[in-house]
């Protein structure tokens, strides 16, 4: 979806707040918010793509005004609510009003949680499980459509022509995963775009380039 989160190429957000926003955590509640989402991701049925999509659905004003970790917390809360593990009143008050089946959603233990972080996710499928539609040096065009759900094509490359620079592994497809439709595995391609093709005469230098990794479903032969 082309919501406000798709910021690439927009004007109007001023200088980068380098000094004032060099922090990772500034407040203790930001630490708690980070830890809460990681803790809950382990025992409730959501994944990173679903979490991102919840954030993307915030109103533009909320997206731009809320702290990053508040957005995480809103998204986590929504996913917990969707899963029936909490309700709106509980979230508003912080007070438990009904019990959940902890045999299905056991709290993750400290060591297990840290180990899960150290292991990470598994997003790939065997390379030989799919035939790549494009090869290195192929010229491709990014499709002009934009699904209403989660997608990984920024608006600034939509309809643009680029060159395949690497055939990446076979990955799960974020658009499908975010919808709960399963992995829809496909090749991902490292695609090079010339800055002049994206920005015309605004390009700062004629040889500058932008690289994006794009799923096969986003591309057509140009």
């Amino acid at each position, binding site marked *: 979806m082309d919501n406000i989160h798709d910021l690439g190429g927009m004007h109007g957000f001023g200088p980068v707040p380098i000094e004032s*926003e060099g922090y990772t955590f500034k407040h203790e509640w930001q630490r708690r918010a980070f830890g809460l989402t990681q803790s809950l991701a382990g025992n409730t049925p959501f994944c990173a793509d679903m979490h991102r999509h919840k954030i993307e659905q915030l109103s533009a004003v909320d997206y731009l005004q809320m702290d990053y970790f508040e957005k995480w917390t809103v998204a986590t809360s929504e996913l917990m609510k969707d899963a029936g593990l909490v309700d709106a009143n509980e979230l508003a008050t912080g007070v438990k009003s009904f019990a959940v089946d902890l045999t299905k959603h056991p709290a993750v233990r400290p060591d297990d949680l840290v180990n899960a972080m150290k292991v990470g996710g598994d997003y790939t499928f065997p390379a030989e499980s799919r035939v790549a539609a494009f090869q290195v040096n192929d010229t491709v065009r990014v499709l002009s459509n934009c699904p209403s759900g989660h997608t990984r094509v920024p608006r600034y490359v939509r309809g643009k022509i680029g060159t395949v620079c690497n055939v990446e592994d076979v990955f799960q497809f974020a658009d499908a995963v975010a919808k709960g439709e399963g992995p829809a595995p496909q090749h*991902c391609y490292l695609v090079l775009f010339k800055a002049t093709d994206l920005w015309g005469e605004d390009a700062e230098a004629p040889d500058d380039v932008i690289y994006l990794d794009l799923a096969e479903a986003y591309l057509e032969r140009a």
Partner: protein
Amino acid sequence: MSDHNHHKDHTHGHTHDPVEDGAALRVRALEELVIAKGLVDPAALDSVVEYYERETGPRNGASVVAKAWVDPEFKAWLLKDGTAAIHSMGFKGYQGEHMRVVENTADVHNVIVCTLCSCYPWPVLGLPPAWYKGPAYRSRVVREPRAVLAEFGLTLSQDMKVQVWDSTAEIRFMVLPRRPENTEGLSEAELADMVTRDGMIGTAVV
């Protein structure tokens, strides 16, 4: 027009910011709720924050960079298969499952961003700074990377080619900065001390 902006009180960073107070309350309510419901072990929450604050961060990436500077074979491996080379040093896990390391040279400068979100290589760089997640950096660095880098104090000549890497899929990027001149006598550890977070994002050189 900011002096006319009566919404200004709602932006972040003030001592008593109603938005931030709201955020803190919201987080506290969720924490109390999920602990009361037994869905979260408070010790697990503490552990995961501690893990990211103590065991990840740019020192990890710096040791990768320093190793590449002193070990040509490792450097070649790092650039060919960033995932395997980085994992071999023990820096693996969430947001670092698939890595591509891009090399700054005398002719090419690289910079990383995630315009749609704030994807960042956690195992090697830790969690990203707030500006990396904010709208100014994300909106501008793909359109006018040189102007953004100049704000960071890095002015590039027109002869230097700029490559921007937008993290749109599951692969995370990290910049391999150029080794500073006159560092032949330094140890790998001393070299690592010279490598900064921004050097590995590409908003600075080392």
